[in-house]
């Protein structure tokens, strides 16, 4: 019986990446390799102020002294940092006045991704800051947001237009020396998004950014900085898919979120970088540092992530609960298939009094993949009445994949209550047969079952994103049945 079941699952999960296409757009790229000169060149190309160059150089010099840590349950091939292009920007043909003027190839790319950068988005109330490779191509809705005092623009633009804000918050949550990849990013980050919500403002729309790796051999070093001032609210979306590549591509992003008193940030992401082929060849290495500082009292931050892509995922969106009564949430679905490896989870650092955190992690492993949850819950001495609830579930498809859970607890305050629950399940042949008998094909049945399993997390996503994510889960596990 189990043989049969595994056979079905193998067929269904042995699928090809559906977004493997490349857009042919001219690139303005610098030569491969990394040195102080590279860092200076990037900074110069972006016409950055002196302080930012210094910030980069400090990070670079520190990075040289660091080593990659090997604590994660990952088998990471050696990365040749000299064989990476650290800057590439699509060549603008001319200044763009309207959507019609956006490069048709580029528009087509977004269409294929199901991300229409057009009137539909305007109507559905989503402002899109599309990042193609390293430079923002188009920002919509900026005017409307500007009227509310909301800043939502590319990181480079923010450096030029709002240098004081950038200087104040850059590195305030993720220091440039935080870890190996954070230091690398701090040295060579190319572009990304900047978002500032002023005091008392409720951002009326979901802010979204779509990232995409396009030029071959271009490392992506995105930088996102979100600042929610006192009493403000913002829901921020980020999602990406990448074209098929044989060369491994390094992606080392940093996302910093700074939440002031009484403010709330919801950050949702769907990650679908190219995972490599069925033999485990190619695919993106995704080493991301995401962290939120819940600085003020009563602040709130919620991370929701759907991770389906990348050959290797190393990612722990974390929260520092500094303000009293601050609340942090982490909802995660991580899918690994074929030879994918994921080591992902969160860190909840309770510092303030009456702080509360919730962790819901759903891992799905198929093929020969390895999927690990790694989470730290730390309650500092002064964190009276801190509360944490963690739930870590794993689902296995087939018998050649692995699921691992590494919960770490460090509790230094006796009033804290920390709870951890974990389960492991398998998709049963009986469940698939039940669906088949009602007429539902095996691929759809697995999609249905997996989406049901991940519902608690998917429900956290904004509506239209949830629909996209559901499709993505199914696509990620789909294969060559019948």
């Amino acid at each position, binding site marked *: *019986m189990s043989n*049969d079941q595994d056979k079905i699952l193998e067929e269904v999960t042995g699928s090809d990446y559906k977004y493997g296409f490349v857009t042919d757009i001219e690139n303005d790229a610098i030569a491969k390799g990394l040195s102080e000169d590279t860092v200076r060149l990037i900074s110069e190309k972006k016409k950055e102020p002196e302080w930012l160059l210094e910030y980069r150089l400090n990070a670079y010099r520190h990075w040289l002294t660091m080593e990659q840590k090997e604590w994660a349950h990952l088998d990471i091939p050696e990365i040749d940092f000299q064989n990476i292009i650290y800057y590439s920007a699509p060549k603008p043909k001319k200044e763009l006045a309207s959507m019609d003027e956006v490069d048709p190839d580029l528009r087509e790319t977004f269409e294929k991704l199901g991300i229409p950068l057009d009137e539909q988005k305007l109507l559905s109330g989503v402002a899109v800051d599309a990042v193609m490779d390293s430079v923002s191509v188009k920002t919509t809705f900026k005017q409307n947001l500007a009227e509310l005092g909301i800043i939502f623009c590319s990181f480079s633009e923010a450096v030029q237009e709002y240098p004081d804000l950038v200087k104040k918050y850059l590195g305030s949550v993720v220091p440039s020396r935080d870890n190996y990849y954070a230091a690398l990013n701090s040295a060579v980050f190319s572009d990304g998004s900047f978002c500032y919500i002023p005091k008392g403002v409720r951002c009326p729309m979901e802010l979204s950014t779509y990232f995409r790796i396009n030029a071959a051999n271009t490392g992506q070093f995105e930088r996102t900085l979100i600042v929610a001032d006192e009493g403000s609210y913002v829901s921020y979306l980020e999602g990406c898919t990448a074209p098929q590549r044989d060369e491994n591509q390094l992606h080392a992003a940093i996302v910093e979120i700074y939440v002031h008193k009484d403010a709330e940030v919801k950050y949702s992401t769907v990650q679908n970088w190219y995972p490599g082929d069925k033999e485990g060849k190619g695919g993106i290495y995704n080493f991301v540092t995401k962290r939120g500082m819940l600085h003020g009292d009563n602040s709130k931050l919620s991370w929701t992530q759907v991770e389906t892509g990348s050959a290797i995922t190393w990612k722990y969106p974390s929260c520092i609960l500094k303000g009293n009564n601050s609340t942090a949430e982490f909802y995660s679905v991580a899918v690994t298939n074929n030879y994918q490896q994921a080591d992902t989870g969160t860190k909840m650092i309770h510092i303030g009094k009456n702080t509360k955190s919730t962790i819901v992690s759903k891992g799905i492993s198929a093929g020969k993949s390895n999927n690990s949850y790694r989470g730290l819950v730390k309650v500092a001495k002064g964190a009276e009445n801190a509360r944490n609830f963690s739930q870590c579930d794993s689902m296995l498809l087939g018998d050649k994949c692995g699921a691992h859970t590494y919960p770490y607890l460090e509790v230094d305050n006796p009033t804290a209550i920390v709870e951890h629950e974990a389960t492991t399940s398998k998709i049963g042949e009986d469940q698939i047969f*039940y669906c*088949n008998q*009602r*007429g*539902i*094909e095996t691929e759809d049945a697995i999609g*249905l079952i997996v989406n049901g399993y*991940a519902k608690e997390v998917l429900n956290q996503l904004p509506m239209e994103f949830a629909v996209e994510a559901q499709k993505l889960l199914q696509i990620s596990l789909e294969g060559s049945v019948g």
Partner: protein
Amino acid sequence: MLSIKNLKANINGKEILKGINLEVKAGEVHAIMGPNGSGKSTLASVLAGREIFEVTDGHVEYMGEDLLELSVEERASKGIFLGFQYPVEIPGVSMVNFMKAAVNAQRKHRGEEPINASEFLKLMREKKDIVELDSKLTGRSVNEGFSGGEKKRNEIFQMAMLEPKLSILDETDSGLDIDALRIVANGVTKLKNKDNATVVITHYQRLLDYIVPDFVHVLYKGKIIKSGTKELALELEEKGYDWLIKDL
């Protein structure tokens, strides 16, 4: 509608069905009875196409087609419905979504457009009444946390939704109290018409008080050893199976 000839099937190399012959015509109700382990549920599973069973011999014709050539979902879409003895739980998937996926999958197989939302909800409301299914149940996850009775009623509800031509009900009466039994059986009876057929697998005659069969068959050690009319069920109720077995 259904013609089974000399059907033999194995599981893990062990022969369970040892040459079944059965004819079912539109408009008929057949009851299959027999002691535990005689192969009743296996017969139901094989007809539905469950792959863990290996058909080693014989032929099954359904609506003019070779049934054994069809996949599980093709059989379903062509009107074969299996009421499960142990309905399966699918956590996190609401009955509404599950039914919608099923109805649309079957429509797609038949080359029809997906059902629109309002039409679908109307259909749900209509069919729920047939088995007196609580509205709350359809909002809950498939069979998760359902009582035994609710699960069985939910099976008949799905049967009503999918409007099958051939329904095979595998011990739909097991684990039901007398009220639930009545509701389930009445549901089945309401769904009966001259164009569809029902095969009821049961241990007990009491179900047949509600779902009156045209034919009763006794399955024993993988073979139908006796066929008759509804009176046969009564006789079995009274005398058990021993007298038949002794005759072999």
